[in-house]
């Protein structure tokens, strides 16, 4: 316990890094995921194809492998981002595939008649997607998107492998300096919980708030 209390400022700083990493990556992942879900239901074949290739490639590669490939691979061809930026890019690209699949599932829950009515009014594909289909799709997938968010909180721990000073990195660091891994990582776990539990509650509240009456 003392190890954690003695290093409380460091834990709080690291919690903030983890939270930032998660929130920024999630916002980007939502953007990427929504766009890609749109690609995957688009009438344009090359876009559908592009969306599928992206999802299948990235989703089926371990996050740790993606991080290593991105950091070392791009360094090799002369492209360099800070480790923090690299972590955000890889986390959002990876999480984007899960968002895309979740949003696509949401799109499939929207009755086909909704899109037909929108087309009958003369809306173009992107208009009907953004004005009619997606608003309803999102409402039905708040809970699964919440799970993606919580998974991301924990996945962000892998950023510690490229020296981003988040909760996991702090755990490793303090373990090395104090030799008390159990106490230290219990501390890390506690702060992860502190982020994840309220997120779950907020998601539940949000889901009830935006539910579509049918």
């Amino acid at each position, binding site marked *: 316990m003392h190890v954690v209390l003695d290093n409380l400022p460091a834990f709080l700083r690291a919690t903030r890094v983890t939270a930032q990493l998660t929130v920024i990556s999630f916002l980007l992942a939502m953007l990427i995921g929504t766009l890609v879900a749109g690609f995957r239901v688009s009438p344009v074949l090359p876009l559908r194809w592009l969306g599928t290739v992206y999802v299948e490639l990235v989703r089926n590669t371990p996050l740790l492998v993606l991080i290593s490939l991105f950091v070392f691979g791009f360094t090799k061809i002369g492209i360099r981002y800070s480790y923090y930026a690299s972590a955000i890019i890889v986390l959002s690209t990876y999480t984007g595939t899960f968002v895309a699949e979740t949003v696509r599932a949401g799109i499939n829950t929207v*009755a086909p008649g*909704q899109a*037909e*009515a929108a087309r*009958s*009014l*003369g809306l173009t594909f992107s208009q009907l997607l953004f004005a009619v289909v997606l608003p*309803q799709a999102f409402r039905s997938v708040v809970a699964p998107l919440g799970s993606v968010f919580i998974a991301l909180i924990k996945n962000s721990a892998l950023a510690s492998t490229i020296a981003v000073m988040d909760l996991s990195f702090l755990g490793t660091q303090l373990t090395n300096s104090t030799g008390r891994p159990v106490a230290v990582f219990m501390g890390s776990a506690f702060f992860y919980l502190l982020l994840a539990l309220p997120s779950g509650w907020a998601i539940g509240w949000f889901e009830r708030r935006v539910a*579509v009456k049918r």
Partner: protein
Amino acid sequence: MTPAPLVVVEKVNKHFGDLHVLRDIDLTVDRGEVVVVIGPSGSGKSTLCRCINRLERVTSGRITIDGVALPEEGKALARLRADVGMVFQSFNLFAHKTILQNVTLGPIKVRKLAKDEARERGLKLLERVGIADKADRYPAELSGGQQQRAAIARALAMGPKLMLFDEPTSALDPEMIKEVLDVMVELAAEGTTMVVVTHEMGFARSAARRVAFMDGGRIVEMASPEQFFDQPQTDRAKDFLSKILAH
């Protein structure tokens, strides 16, 4: 010289896989005319209606609206659809939008009308179909008849040249059918060009100028309502009428 018809359907065939649902359909609809399409289930009448605004793609043949052949999917088709109102059996109101938002969405997004103006016109239309008091409610809070009237207002808001009705009363309780038909009869009396797929023989008799009777994917009889109901020419039509008018 008579003005060119608004809708021309020429030699249209439609297949769903092995199923041949429309066979050599020829149909013209004049401006201001109400054509009622009747026939047994599976005769292809809904498909014909959906082909006219290309929600279904025809396999062969040609459909023109106001002299323009239906374009391929894309911006041109969207523009054309904006001029063709469609009312569905299952209403298909946008579930996440209020009744008024349902009615103003098309005018704002497609016609680029200012929000205030769209709102004002939308409220007038809702008044016309008798549900102005429901403007801020969501579709699920309305009865079927009210939803269908809202759907008609939504279609009218685009100022369409043509209104398509695909079994508009088939999903309604009997006492709600009348309120929807009343609105449709009024539209017909105002000279709206309408193609109506329906089982409502009373409506066909009172509002249609012509009745198209379909069976097995063909239009087997086309006549004025008086002639069709009183002196059907084909055995198939006689048989159909005897079954539905027996009770």
